[in-house]
């Protein structure tokens, strides 16, 4: 059995569709006969080809929403379309900042439950079953929607591999954003981008992350040096992001980035469940921790029980000598 129609909330920046959107589209087309996108932005024409190549036949575009936060206007637009009879069986979004805002608002408007943090989806009869990892990913919970569509689903990044379907460019259609009055009065005034060096956490083949075991903020340079040497992206545990050693954009884990590189190196990171859900899918994991009992060792391929202040400098030196 397949569903008849799924809508995927498409996200893009500077005309580039987010990887997670393409991952979700790839999965959605195995679940439903028709996959369409809803896109909050004025440049739908620029992304219609990529969305189509991943299985979307139509993209409903809101037009320019710059200066606004997306939750209220996009949820209102979708709710109006659904109530007007154009209802998909499921609406799927990435567990992103805007995705959560939109789906939270939409769940109230449609009075439908929204299930978050999913890493997989299955069709059971005419309903949808979601898969959520708990306890750091060692247990999976499957939940079925029981109240009919639209089923509202938020998917974690990197849950699926994006693949092209060979589809033609999606047709671009308009979706009307109603007046949202005072509820929609929040304004986005200015964007600030924090510069970070090297490859992005999302795309790097190697990620080198540091945690509280580094001891002090200055020691994060060891992580940066090693990352530079390996062409890797530097990452971090939340402990040192909260401590202000590195910006939030470095954070790996449940509330940070999900990474799946070829190699993940965790230095001075204990392996809390919330960190593990962000990196457990890496192909190879190397851990350096002075505590042999640290949970990170239960998921690593190579574990060094040792002091980061000895192992990291030695490692950098060996790599420099090559």
């Amino acid at each position, binding site marked *: 059995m397949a569903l008849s129609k799924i809508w995927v909330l498409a996200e893009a920046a500077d005309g580039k569709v987010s990887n997670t959107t393409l991952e979700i589209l790839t999965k959605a087309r195995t679940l439903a006969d028709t996959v369409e996108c809803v896109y909050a932005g004025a440049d739908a024409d620029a992304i219609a080809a990529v969305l189509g190549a991943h299985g979307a036949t139509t993209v409903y575009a809101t037009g320019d929403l710059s200066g606004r936060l997306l939750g209220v206007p996009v949820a209102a637009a979708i709710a109006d379309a659904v109530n007007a009879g154009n209802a998909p069986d499921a609406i799927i979004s990435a567990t992103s900042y805007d995705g959560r805002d939109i789906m939270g*608002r939409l769940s109230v408007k449609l009075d439908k439950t929204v299930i978050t943090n999913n890493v997989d989806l299955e069709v059971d009869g005419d309903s949808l079953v979601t898969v959520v990892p708990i306890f750091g990913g060692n247990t999976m919970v499957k939940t079925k929607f*029981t109240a009919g569509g639209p089923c509202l689903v938020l998917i974690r990044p990197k849950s699926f591999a994006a693949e092209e379907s060979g589809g033609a460019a999606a047709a671009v259609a308009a979706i009307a954003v109603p007046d949202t009055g*005072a509820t929609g009065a929040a304004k986005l005034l200015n964007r*600030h981008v924090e510069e970070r060096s090297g490859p992005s956490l999302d795309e790097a083949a190697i990620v080198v992350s540091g945690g509280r075991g580094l001891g002090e903020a200055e020691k994060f340079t060891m992580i940066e040096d090693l990352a530079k040497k390996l062409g890797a992206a530097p990452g971090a545990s939340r402990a040192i992001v909260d401590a202000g050693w590195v910006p939030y954009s470095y954070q790996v884990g449940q509330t940070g980035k999900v990474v799946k590189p070829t190699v993940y190196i965790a230095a001075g990171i204990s392996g809390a469940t919330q960190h593990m859900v962000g990196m457990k899918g890496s192909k190879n994991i190397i851990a350096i921790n002075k505590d042999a009992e640290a949970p990170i060792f239960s998921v690593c391929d190579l574990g060094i029980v040792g002091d980061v202040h000895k192992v990291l400098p030695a490692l950098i030196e060996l790599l420099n000598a090559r």
Partner: protein
Amino acid sequence: MNIVVCVKQIPDPAEPGALDPNTKTLKRDGKLILDDSDSYGVEMALQLADAAGGGEVTLVSMAPNNEVSGLRTALAMGAAKSVLVSDPALAGTSALGTAKVLAAAIKRVEGADLILTATESSDGYTGTIPEQIAELLGLPSITFAKSISIADGTVSVQRQTEAGYDECEAPLPAVVSVTAGVVEPRYPSFKGIMAAKSKPVDQVTCSDLGIDPASVGWAGGGQEIVLVEAAPAREAGEVIEDDGTGAEKIVAFLDTLKVI
């Protein structure tokens, strides 16, 4: 400046989590504590009320068994009073149902200018409840706040993004969700702990809030857990004591992977 802070009371995260074999949801029957994630909202509220030259911070919580220990912690930090919703009918309530209950409880607090939540709870982490509350109350909202300031009836927020942050603002009243680690939550003083014992806790049930029990709980959720299973385990790798050759072992491993 009157501020409502939603605070969740959760099982101590230091204890290993367990599922109830019957309901397949997290066990919440033991003693509960203040969710660490919400201590930032409480601290932020106290600082904002201070900066505004006064006003009350009111806590709102939904928890089983009339649990108050987490509320007492936040009252000891300096919140003035609290509303606690506790009702057997609420067992198994979904995120949307929880938001309906919290929104109804917030309406009991008169003259709230600002409603704060955490961006996500430590044990549920759906992260959708702040927006759901805002929609139910018909209020504007800004999520993932790193910093908050208030002037002239407007709340200004630095909202965390993938790449940095956005400067946002909304007219009050509004709902704002606060990210963890952005302020340093104060430790309750001895005086605060003593004072907390006599601060008012307005205990209410679904019927006090005019909530139909059928719209919450297991039945009202529109979802059903069908299976809980162990994830495929990662094969255990090699863990070795560093005898001075740890770095060499890493290089050798990276060599076999052909990434250097």
